[in-house]
């Protein structure tokens, strides 16, 4: 999906050194790059397929269209939170409080709209603004005072869990009106299949267009170009994945509005990370903060922006969770939410130590985790099994990631 088309600027110059390794080109190289590239998503895609095969074997209902629609809907709230976690991890920080912040946002929306009678949009805006403010405080504490984000956000986890309980009040649970447009959109809003196909076509054509355009500019600048076969192959793969998804989901309820929102957010984050100055700063700061500073990167601003993006996305995730449940209660965003979100980001291939990762790792990671949870629920297995299996998957993902990385360094 995001295998960058610009690697291997294959030009070797008058060498002072003995001739360096020539750039590899060929179908094998393309595959190798998919597996070993800096943002290689291939290992996690293989992992996801493996999980699905195993689950399909032991729970035949797992791969039914209706169940996969459920799976996509279940993945959205934690996925949105995980996307924020990816951003803080990339910049070399962590946010343990995403669960509490999401719960607080859900509580604010519920109390605002149900108890205080605000219009729904206002409730959402206030909740998002609170999320943003929390991130701003974290960012300032982290950059101005130099406190470790692990500790700041651990304090935030406790503090905002308390605020969430206080906002919810003695009842501890508030039902959102079932007929409100938001709850309906989140629970029962699905794209008309025709619209879905149009979106698929737009996406594939936009992808193909950018590839051709970039290739043409590179050709004119006399830089190395990716072979046409690769452009066709990639576009074909994207078209295949999207068509299969939309086609299969449409045999049941289809693609939910919230799923579309999540995917759009991932695309925006991906483009921002790879194609803007901000994204470059994020990776530079996460990889080597001092070098970034000496190079003139606005380190503080970059770190603060990632905290703000993370807590805002956490708030949005909480709002979506409340919409999906039709209620905000003391459990919203509690228990394992933050652990699941962080695990999703890491399973998806984002490094815990900053600098390496991709926005797509949020989507892929959350699909793995939710697939396991969903499949085990189909088998009537309990929470205990779910935790243990998810833990094992997380460990397995990290081991695979490390092995791939080690092999790449030896190569």
């Amino acid at each position, binding site marked *: 999906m995001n295998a960058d088309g610009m690697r291997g600027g294959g030009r070797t110059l008058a060498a002072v050194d003995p001739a360096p390794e020539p750039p590899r080109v060929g179908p094998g190289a393309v595959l190798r790059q998919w597996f070993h590239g800096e943002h290689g998503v291939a290992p996690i895609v293989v992992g996801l397929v493996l999980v699905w095969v195993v689950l399909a074997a032991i729970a035949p209902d797992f791969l039914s269209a209706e169940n996969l629609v459920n799976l996509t809907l279940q993945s959205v709230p934690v996925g949105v939170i995980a996307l924020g976690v990816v951003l803080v991890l990339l910049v070399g920080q962590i946010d343990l409080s995403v669960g509490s912040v999401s719960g607080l946002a859900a509580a604010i929306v519920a109390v605002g709209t149900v108890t205080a009678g605000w219009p729904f949009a206002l409730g959402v805006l206030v909740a998002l603004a609170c999320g943003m403010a929390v991130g701003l405080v974290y960012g300032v504490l982290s950059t101005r005072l130099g406190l470790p984000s692990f500790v700041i956000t651990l304090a935030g986890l406790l503090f905002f869990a308390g605020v969430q309980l206080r906002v919810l009040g003695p009842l501890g649970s508030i039902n959102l009106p079932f007929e409100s447009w938001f709850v309906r959109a989140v629970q029962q809003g699905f794209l008309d299949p025709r619209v879905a196909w149009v979106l698929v076509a737009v996406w594939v054509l936009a992808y193909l267009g950018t590839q051709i355009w970039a290739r043409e500019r590179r050709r004119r600048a006399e830089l190395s170009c990716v072979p046409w076969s690769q452009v066709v192959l990639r576009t074909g793969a994207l078209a295949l994945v999207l068509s299969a998804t939309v086609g299969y989901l449409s045999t049941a309820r289809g693609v939910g509005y919230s799923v579309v929102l999540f995917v759009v957010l991932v695309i925006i984050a991906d483009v921002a990370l790879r194609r803007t100055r901000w994204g470059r700063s994020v990776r530079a700061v996460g990889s080597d903060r*001092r*070098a970034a500073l000496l190079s003139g990167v606005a380190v503080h601003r970059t770190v603060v922006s990632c905290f703000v993006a993370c807590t805002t996305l956490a708030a949005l995730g909480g709002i979506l969770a409340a919409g999906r449940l039709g209620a905000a209660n003391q459990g919203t965003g509690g228990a394992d939410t933050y652990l699941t979100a962080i695990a999703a980001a890491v399973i998806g291939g984002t490094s815990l130590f900053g600098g*390496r990762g991709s926005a797509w790792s949020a989507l892929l990671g959350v699909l793995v985790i939710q697939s396991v949870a969903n499949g085990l629920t189909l088998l009537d297995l309990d929470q205990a099994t779910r935790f243990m299996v998810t833990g094992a998957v997380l460990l397995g993902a990290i081991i695979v990631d490390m092995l791939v990385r080690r092999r790449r360094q030896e190569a």
Partner: protein
Amino acid sequence: MNESIEPGSALPRTPAGPVVSLRGVSKRFGGVRALVDVDVDVHEHEVLAVVGDNGAGKSTLAGVLAGAHRPDSGQVLVDGAPVVLDSPAAARALGIATVFQELALVNDLDVVENLFLGHEVGRGGFLDEVEMERRAWQVLDQLAASVPSVRDPVRTLSGGQRQVIAVARALLGSPRVVVLDEPTASLGVRQTAQVLNLITRLRARGHAVVLVSHQAGDLQAVADRILVLRLGRVHGTYTGETSYEDLLAAMTGAVRPSPGRR
């Protein structure tokens, strides 16, 4: 201390005055006097080596030129006019680019990303990768650098190649003065030769090069003048032909008659 070099020494004389001069510059860190009343002139088309033992004030001198340290007293002149170098950005804007000893490269970013980090070329809000890659090749061509791919992370490059990338980044702003702080300290023999080669090319292109090092032997290969610092003071300025023993004597203070000294 004015560098009126002995007649007969084979030095390229610059027609204009010095590009950068320090006049009576002193800097102390707490109780340590890192630089005491230092005068230096840096000319175009010239490699000025700054040598000295550990703690002689070499890196402080580089830091003053880089804008990383502000002198406590004394003046910094660019083209004869007094200036204030209070940040690396300010120094850069005045045409002085510095390659720090630690290089300040980001390992996970590729060569192009590193070259333009903090100064990316944009196009309608997005990065212009094509333009940056084109310019990257241009500057690497100028240095006759050998880099297998500009899209490999710099973590995969050798020490010498990393040094070249750091120098290339300094050159992107078309500086007049390039300050190199211990560029060969962590390099092997062949890579050191490569970097010294690079330095002579910089001189040929008309840059003024300030080369800070404690490896006196290497410097004699490329330096036009050698400034010896000892305990924060300028101990003397020598020609590039000065023998190793004489330099060593000057650096350590074991005085002996030195024919190269003025």
